[in-house]
């Protein structure tokens, strides 16, 4: 078995294209992703709400005491950074230029309508790319009438003095998303690490298919080396190769780009090891299955980037239950927990190991089934 492991390792690690594909490419992707999407990660947590104010352009067509009070209350709410514009045209110009997220137009007669009890309507406008912000801004802006309404409900002479912010706590990362709060480089180091390990599945699959489909496989199987040893050698060499590649990528990402993978290298190594074993065992199984099913090859080639995408590997997105269907998610979550200092949850990883064992045994049975191809 050692002979096969050593020879396989040597063949894999001296293959320039494999090295390029599995070490240089992920590093390149980490750099591209980390830089391109850095802006979506900065100040995700531990930031003051001030950095998350909505930029609100205000066109006050009334300029009354009432409208000025409205603008002042919006500015005081802590939710809006208010910018005044003299006319609707200049306001829309600012909107189109991206200077403000939402434009509020206070209609002329606002103050008198308010005094008369005729509810004036404040118009909110946003570009089509800011539909979600517009809806949220409307919900927040509706608060401006709350105090007056409460006054009306109680019949008191003066409106209450609300201090918005009394009840609002600071944002904290929630336990359902362990990836919240990590930097872009760290996020992509994790997702690209899982991607490399997943590509290990594809590589082992191709390698096993080439080795065991045809005369070379016959020669292996005709040798005195036992079946279990033969398949174990493939898994061991694949896992070691994946571990080396993972180590290089993590090392480079940490040393060169400042990725932070937590404080327990052993936990990270254990997660990587489980992923490497699972993916290589699956690669072995699919490679053996692929001897008689050539369609598996293109399918796996496509599924790897697709699963990475759905698992939030390329863009940090939440695809809900679709995400849970991706194998990337299991290992990304485990790594993000470690990075965020959340206690590891070993049960999915142990399930993966058990699955690896079962698939390994199935492969050992299947490797001899060349005759029924």
């Amino acid at each position, binding site marked *: 078995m050692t002979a096969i492991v050593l020879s396989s390792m040597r063949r894999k690690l001296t293959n320039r294209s494999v090295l390029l594909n599995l070490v240089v490419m992920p590093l390149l992707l980490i750099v591209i992703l980390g830089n391109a999407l850095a802006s979506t990660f900065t100040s995700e947590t531990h930031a003051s709400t001030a950095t998350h104010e909505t930029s609100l352009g205000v066109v006050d067509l009334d300029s009354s005491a009432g409208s000025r009070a409205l603008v002042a209350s919006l500015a005081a709410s802590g939710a809006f950074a208010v910018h005044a514009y003299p006319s609707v045209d200049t306001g829309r110009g600012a909107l189109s230029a991206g200077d403000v997220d939402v434009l509020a137009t206070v209609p002329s007669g606002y103050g008198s309508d308010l005094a008369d009890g005729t509810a004036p309507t404040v118009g909110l406008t946003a570009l089509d790319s800011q539909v979600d912000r517009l809806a949220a801004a409307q919900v927040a802006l509706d608060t401006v009438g709350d105090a007056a309404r409460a006054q009306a409900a109680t019949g008191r002479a003066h409106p209450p003095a609300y201090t918005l912010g009394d009840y609002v706590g600071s944002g904290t990362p929630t336990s359902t998303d362990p990836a919240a709060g990590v930097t872009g480089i760290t996020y992509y180091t994790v997702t690209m690490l899982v991607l490399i390990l997943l590509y290990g599945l594809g590589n082992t699959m191709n390698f096993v298919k080439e080795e065991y489909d045809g005369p*070379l496989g016959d020669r292996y199987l005709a040798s005195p080396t036992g079946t279990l040893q033969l398949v174990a050698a493939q898994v061991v060499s694949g896992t070691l190769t994946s571990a080396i590649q993972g180590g290089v990528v993590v090392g480079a990402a940490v040393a060169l780009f400042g990725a932070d993978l937590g404080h327990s290298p052993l936990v990270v190594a254990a997660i990587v090891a489980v992923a490497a074993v699972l993916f290589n065992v699956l690669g072995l199984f699919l490679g053996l299955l692929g001897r008689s099913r050539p369609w598996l090859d293109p399918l796996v080639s496509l599924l790897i980037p697709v699963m990475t995408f759905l698992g939030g590997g390329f863009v940090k997105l939440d695809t809900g239950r679709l995400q849970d269907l991706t194998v990337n998610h299991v290992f990304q979550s485990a790594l993000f927990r470690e990075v965020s200092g959340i206690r590891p949850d070993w049960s999915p990883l142990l399930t993966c190991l058990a699955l690896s064992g079962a698939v390994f045994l199935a492969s050992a049975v299947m490797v001899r089934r*060349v*005759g029924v191809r």
Partner: protein
Amino acid sequence: MPTALECRNVSFRYHKRRPVLDGVTFAVERGQIFGLLGPNGAGKSTLVKILLGLNRAGEGSVTWFGEPLTTRTRRRIGYVPQDLALLYDLSAHDNVRFFGRLNGMSGKHLEERTRTVLDFVGLWDERGKQPGEYSGGMKRRLNIACGIVHDPDVVIMDEPTVGVDPQSRNHILESIETLRDQGTTVVYISHYMEEVERLCTTIGVIDEGTYLCGGTLEELLHAHAPEAIVDLELTTGTTVDADDLAGLEILEQRSGGVSVSVPEGQLDVMRLIADRFDDKVQRFTYIPPNLEQVFFRLTKKALRD
């Protein structure tokens, strides 16, 4: 002489299809070159897989040196597959060493054997090259070296000369003769009757999964092709009539030619042919008894069909 390989009543079929092998029985004695002759699709490669334990026989048994196939017996068997089974990203030297290790070899013994077999197939000087840099014949020779590096007692060679140039083919055949001289038993699978005739001590003939007959070349010829053939190509415009053919056993009559059987020792038939066709024949070919005829007699079809 003790038996190296015994195949008893072996049958095999894929799922519920027609049997690929049907009750194949033969034995190979040690030190022999046993030739298994059959056309393409006869079931030779399937039989090889069963002999090596790569396929499991539906019925029957295979024993090597009187034992079923075990790790111990596997060490005594070498296998040279029909297609090239090489690692293209390793040098020839590393290929041989790898397959040596796969067969349980190590250390100095492995190094010595690696040199010996690479010398044996004439590739020692080119050992640093990868198989991709070799010619077709050199690859075939390396394929053989990888199969015999562990000094097996028996080597199964499945069509080792397919697609090689005459020079390399001759080199391979000479190597096999040397192996025989060194006491190695060789199971030589081929559909080239000339090679089987040249090399093999005993010959088995297989077709459509059935083992038709076995024995030495002489025994087979005597039992199944006791006659020679005279093939006559007639001069243009000439015809043969019933009188010309009277008293002769005609194997084939075609426009412009006729094949006549000449039973062993019957020289008067030759005389008859000479008398009747002297002025009608453009070309006269005498074909002595051979395996082709054995095969034709047994299956009513040509070996190369």
